């Protein structure tokens, strides 16, 4: 055996994957602390574009928000020169989080400990007593303020959406997304000014990958979500598609709503759905007063962008969902609901009403957070063995329906490359 073959053999036996492809997913991926550390290093702190916020949240010079790239705390700030920067929220002196507020507007950032003060561009403006007091103390002669700024991340923006990376993604954001994904991304972020209508945050007691799997799995949506199914918002018999970029790391699920009458009529597909309720009627029908606002017949577009973003368009509710990993069995999900600056009052009211479908109390998404909790409990109780991900075959190709788990397989095929290389 050559050294190369030996290395390959060792690697294969090291692998916790029981199959060549990604149609069986080892449960250890959801519980193992070492794997989680590796995910932070390789994926979240690695050479990929992570979502950090919307420009509409920080429209003026001095506006900032704080968030996380992986577990790393960052400040997203609108500079006095108009440039959006993403700075590590970690004092260059002793490592404190310099900024503790989630949003605000400032002229500079000052660390509370020794009052080191930084400009909106991250440069150190002042460090008290650095020249000493009455000839005593002070920093060494060779201390230079310019060597001690806040660490700046690489930044890319498109359509008002801000991405950053702690490493060097090497690819432009456009190449990173790829032409197939950009088409859907630009459908919502079409250059119009966005208007943020609010943020929801939830801490979900489950592994972060379960969130991506959930959105990449349209099969569950037509079964678990009685609300979606019964009102025809998402059904296995609706015209739909599941598509990936060429790497498999990003995906998009699209579906077209059946008309209301057709939706409430039982058929062969609904017979398979134990959860379908023919009798379900809203007393306040304004909840589902949906207005067509985008080109094409798709009424649901759920896009997942590696490594931490979901873009949601369901009815007239639009939101980004940002995944912030916290531990093998915990992540935060930050929802930023938005519309457009040119929405009229009726559309603003409609978006707020449709937001009832989503978020921690959403008619649809509360099923998901509860299911993820139950999944993590089941897996943590015994993390031996593999999950079976074989609906729609064992491959990772695009499919023109949603009775499939192909997008999950594509995600894990890419994940394996990143984690095992």
């Amino acid at each position, binding site marked *: 055996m050559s050294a190369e073959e030996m290395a390959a053999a060792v690697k294969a036996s090291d692998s916790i994957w029981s199959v060549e492809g990604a149609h069986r997913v080892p449960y250890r991926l959801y519980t193992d602390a070492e794997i989680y550390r590796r995910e932070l290093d390789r994926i979240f702190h690695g050479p990929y574009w992570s979502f950090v916020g919307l420009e509409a949240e920080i429209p003026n010079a001095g506006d900032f928000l704080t968030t996380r790239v992986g577990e790393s705390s960052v400040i997203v700030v609108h500079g006095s020169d108009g440039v959006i920067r993403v700075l590590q929220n970690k004092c260059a002196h002793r490592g404190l989080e310099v900024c503790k507020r*989630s949003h605000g507007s400032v002229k500079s950032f000052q660390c509370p400990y020794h009052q080191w003060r930084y400009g909106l561009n991250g440069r150190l403006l002042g460090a008290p007593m650095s020249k000493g007091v009455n000839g005593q103390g002070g920093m060494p002669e060779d201390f230079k303020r310019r060597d001690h700024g806040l660490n700046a991340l690489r930044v890319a923006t498109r359509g008002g959406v801000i991405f950053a990376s702690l490493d060097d993604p090497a690819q432009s954001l456009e190449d990173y997304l790829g032409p197939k994904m950009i088409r859907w991304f630009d459908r919502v972020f079409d250059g119009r000014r966005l208007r943020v*209508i*609010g943020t929801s945050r939830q801490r979900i007691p489950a592994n972060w990958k379960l969130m991506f799997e959930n959105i990449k799995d349209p099969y569950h949506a037509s079964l*678990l979500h*009685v609300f979606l199914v019964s009102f025809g918002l998402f059904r296995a018999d609706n015209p739909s598609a599941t598509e990936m970029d060429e790497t498999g790391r990003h995906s998009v699920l699209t579906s077209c709503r059946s008309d209301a009458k057709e939706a409430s009529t039982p058929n062969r597909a609904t017979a398979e759905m134990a959860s379908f309720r023919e009798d379900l009627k*809203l007393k306040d029908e304004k909840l589902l007063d949906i207005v067509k606002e985008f080109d094409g017949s798709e009424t649901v577009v759920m896009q997942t962008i590696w490594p931490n973003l979901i873009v949601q368009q369901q009815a007239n509710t639009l939101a980004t969902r940002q995944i912030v990993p916290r531990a093998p069995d915990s992540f935060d999900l930050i929802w930023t609901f938005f519309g457009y600056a040119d929405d009229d009052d009726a559309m603003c009211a409609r978006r707020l009403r449709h*937001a009832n479908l989503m978020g*921690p*109390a959403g008619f649809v998404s509360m099923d998901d957070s*509860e299911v993820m909790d139950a999944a993590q409990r089941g897996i943590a109780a015994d993390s031996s063995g593999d999950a079976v991900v074989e609906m729609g075959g064992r491959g990772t190709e695009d499919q023109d329906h949603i009775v499939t788990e192909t997008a999950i397989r594509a995600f894990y095929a890419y994940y394996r490359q990143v984690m095992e290389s």
Partner: protein
Amino acid sequence: MSAKIPLGLRAEVDDLYARYATILDEGPLGSWSSLFRVDGSYRVITRENLDRGLPLALILCESRAAIEDRTYAIENTTFALPRQTRHLITNLVTTEAEKSDGWRVEANFAVFESLEERPTRCHSTGRYRDILARDDDGDLCFVEKVCVCDSPLVPNSLIIPL
């Protein structure tokens, strides 16, 4: 200085909030909507959004019909792990409402949640900012109920209303 609220009215307000908590914790959830006027509204918002002037609600019911839809969904269409809640409501302050015939009531709330195989935890704390009025039968009811959550972060899901 607003007019002094008679003790009898204060007792009625106390009673409404006690019934509210009892219905949410002990059921039947179907009676929850009966505490609201037909045009009554219910909203759960976070202090974070309120402070930023952003209108998003975690739950938005603009009518008693919408409250009934929410109740129906919780009981019939939602998947949720079994849980028991406990609503504690304190520090009620009743004043005459400025713009309508009725009263403004503010109060603190704490909602505890118990799930199987886990110790009881505090799910949320916050402040009610409500408008009360008398219905056609002369009973006190909610015209507007706003629950302002202190924390921006929801522990997993919000299933049972606050």
